[in-house]
């Protein structure tokens, strides 16, 4: 069954699929298209998405298939484009703060942290210690929530229905803490430029500590369901492999990069907030396959628990807002500040012309950059693996399209 290619549709022949755009020492991106079956069969071009249960939103992937084998992919993005960066040019620094929550809506706190720190760096102010601790606690809670969401949906993509409900049950506890802290569950707008808007509520520390004891056995529970599950192993081991060199060449960051064996975590590499005070490890994988990425994220959840535990014990008294003027007018200049969001390096590049509004604001979203590794990962695999790999990259389309 062949579908005649209409004029204007993208040419999906391997040479023009965008590979070979990046070159890095030792990288092997100019891979050949896997050998075609000796029987002449027509290639099938199918659209996966934008309305598809497994593309995590409105991602459209054009797949070029030989039977079930993937010969090439092309991601079509932009279905959720809201022009966040352009909006920033028409809003004051304070007004723009809630907009960043809408990019990676699964990790809104991290987005806010990155933005607030970038502006603070531009203005050369610093949040007071208590605010720093609150920020770290909330950000790490958010990292766990984001990873839980990833785990549930990833498992669902691979066909395991049940983990989704377990992770949502436990993620709820984190959202409750957020709700008690700032009134919002998802798009929290938890931080302000210069510190935090809200003091912690009475019983915040107790809630967080209760959560720590609550969630540790739950993570074990997820692992019981999946880590040694034979079908899970078969579906994830050696699937979507990306080498460290390829990952670096493509700019991949976060757990996807670390699963390939590169120990790169901005919390250690370029400590921001007060991460340098805490004792934690950076889990890394060896094979760079889907299973390693799964393990890395599971270990990261445990490390986040360690960080929260230390932070909540050491949280000092004091003010929560730094000395920031009512009207934020950073000096003329530009700044790039990046943090380790749950999905990878989240960077903000802000150009200030000295007015109350950014002259230009550019976001470096981790999902967007990681998504371009999809093609490298899925070539030669089967359709079912495309779904697994999209899940393992952990994209949020709000962030990809902005």
């Amino acid at each position: 069954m062949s579908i005649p290619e209409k004029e204007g549709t993208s040419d999906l022949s391997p040479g023009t699929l965008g590979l070979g755009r990046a070159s890095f020492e030792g990288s092997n991106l100019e891979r050949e298209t896997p050998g075609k079956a000796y029987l002449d069969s027509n290639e099938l071009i199918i659209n996966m998405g934008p309305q598809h249960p497994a593309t995590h939103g409105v991602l459209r992937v054009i797949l070029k298939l030989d039977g079930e084998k993937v010969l090439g992919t092309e991601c079509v993005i932009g279905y959720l484009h809201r022009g966040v960066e352009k909006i920033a040019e028409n809003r004051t620094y304070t007004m723009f703060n809630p907009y960043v929550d809408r990019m990676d809506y699964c990790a809104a706190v991290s987005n806010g942290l990155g933005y607030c720190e970038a502006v603070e760096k531009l203005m050369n102010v610093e949040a007071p210690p208590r605010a720093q601790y609150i920020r770290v606690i909330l950000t790490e809670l958010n990292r766990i929530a984001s990873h839980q969401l990833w785990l549930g949906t990833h498992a669902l993509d691979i066909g395991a229905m049940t983990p989704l409900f377990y992770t949502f049950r436990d993620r709820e506890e984190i959202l409750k803490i957020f709700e008690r802290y700032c009134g919002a569950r998802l798009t929290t707008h938890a931080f302000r430029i210069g510190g935090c808007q809200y003091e912690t509520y009475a019983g915040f520390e107790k809630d967080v500590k209760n959560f720590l004891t609550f969630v540790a056995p739950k993570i074990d529970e997820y692992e019981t369901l999946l880590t040694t599950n034979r079908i899970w192993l078969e579906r994830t081991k050696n699937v979507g492999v990306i080498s460290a060199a390829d990952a670096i060449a493509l700019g991949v960051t976060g757990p996807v990069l670390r699963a390939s064996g590169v120990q790169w975590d901005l919390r250690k590499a370029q400590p921001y907030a007060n991460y340098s005070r805490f004792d934690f490890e950076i889990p890394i994988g060896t094979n760079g396959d889907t299973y390693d990425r799964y393990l890395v994220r599971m270990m990261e959840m445990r490390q986040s628990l360690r960080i929260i535990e230390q932070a909540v014990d050491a949280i000092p008294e004091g003010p929560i807002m730094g000395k920031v003027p009512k009207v934020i007018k950073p000096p003329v200049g530009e700044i790039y500040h990046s943090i380790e969001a749950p999905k990878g390096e989240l960077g903000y590049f802000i150009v200030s012309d000295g007015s109350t509004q950014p002259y230009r604001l550019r976001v470096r979203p981790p999902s967007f950059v990681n998504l371009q590794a999809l093609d490298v990962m899925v070539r030669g695999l089967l359709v079912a693996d495309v779904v697994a790999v999209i899940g393992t990259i952990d994209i949020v389309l709000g962030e990809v399209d902005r």
Partner: protein
Amino acid sequence: MPNFIMSYLGSTLTPGQAGNQFWALMYVLIIFAGVSVAVMCMNWIERKALAHFQIRLGPMRVGPHGLLQPFADALKLMLKEDIIPAEADQFVFWVAPLIGLLAAFTVYTVIPFGPSQAVSDMNIGILFMLGVSSLGVLGIVVAGWASNSHYPLIGALRSSAQMVSYEVAMGLAIVSAIMMTSMNASGTGTLSMIEIVRAQQHQGIWFIFKFFPLGFIAFGIFAVAMVAETNRAPFDLAEAESELTAGFHTEYSGLRWSLFMLAEYAAMIAVSSIAVTLWLGGWLRPFPNLLHAPAWDFLFSLFPGLTFLALGAIAVVGTARMPSHSFFKIQRIGLGIFAALLGSIGLLLLLIAVAGNSANLAVAARFSEGITYVYWFMLKVAIFMYLFIWYRATWPRYRFDQLMRVGWKVLLPISLGVLILTAIVGVVVS
């Protein structure tokens, strides 16, 4: 009452064998209605059980504890607009679900719910069953092709490859069970479903335990293959939601879609029935040879009534536990009526059992006997149906190549080995 109606009640043959067309037709109707109702019940049970596996409540709104949900679903599906895609092959699109349904339901002709509780007893029963149930794949392939769309096509191709490859391992496992039937005095085996169960009774052992562990392995192979055969999780690649949206029935909606569902669940019950018949003693109650005194017979004949009473008691507890708020009044009454219904069915069954035992009522005794047979058969099938749900809640989905590898490189060699070993052991023992 005409003689041909009453005559069957005294007969120990199936209506098909006895040439009793009236009862054969009645059986066909009873089975069609019964399987349809069973599928509706399965729909509710699956949703509830799956929900409880996943710390949810499942349907709770339509009727008490969602008991009327299947009816609501059925009504909704029947009232939905009947969509046939413009590009689809109209006739084939129309006929595909019927093929699947026909294949799934024709199998029931030879399924023995009891020694005479079957439409017919063919001497090639199991062959007929395998042949007809394999036709189900035709419905799927045709549906995928007629939809003229990519996802259904891939789903249909996956499904056909999968069903064909698992048929092989399945067939070999069945052959090893059939070989066991020849271990009797006359030394002749049988393909008749009823005779297979009788053979288990004569040999005094369920074939799952025969030549342990050979029977058990053959049963295990069949248990895996039947999940693949019916396209259920973890082998539900043909309708893998996250990959192919809905697989071969992506373009189907409304009544046609519900026919596919009906066919799928009917096929599940059918393959479970084969497994029960071949390895788990079919309609035989536990230990029919060991505990064969009339007192034991009586005790086991009480089971159906007691089961319904127990279900009724659960419903009563559920009624008592409902919130006392007036909002729940109708729900409480509804569940109470349901409890009363179950309880009265239980009492009726008990009454029949007692009457059949004590009084000299041949008809009551015959009814009681028949109910006991059907009860034990359905209980065993129900366990399999629960397993189907359990698998779905537990496991991720296999990938296509892995599925093929399991079928051809794991199950097939093992089933061949079991077949040969069964033959050798059978010769040595006899």
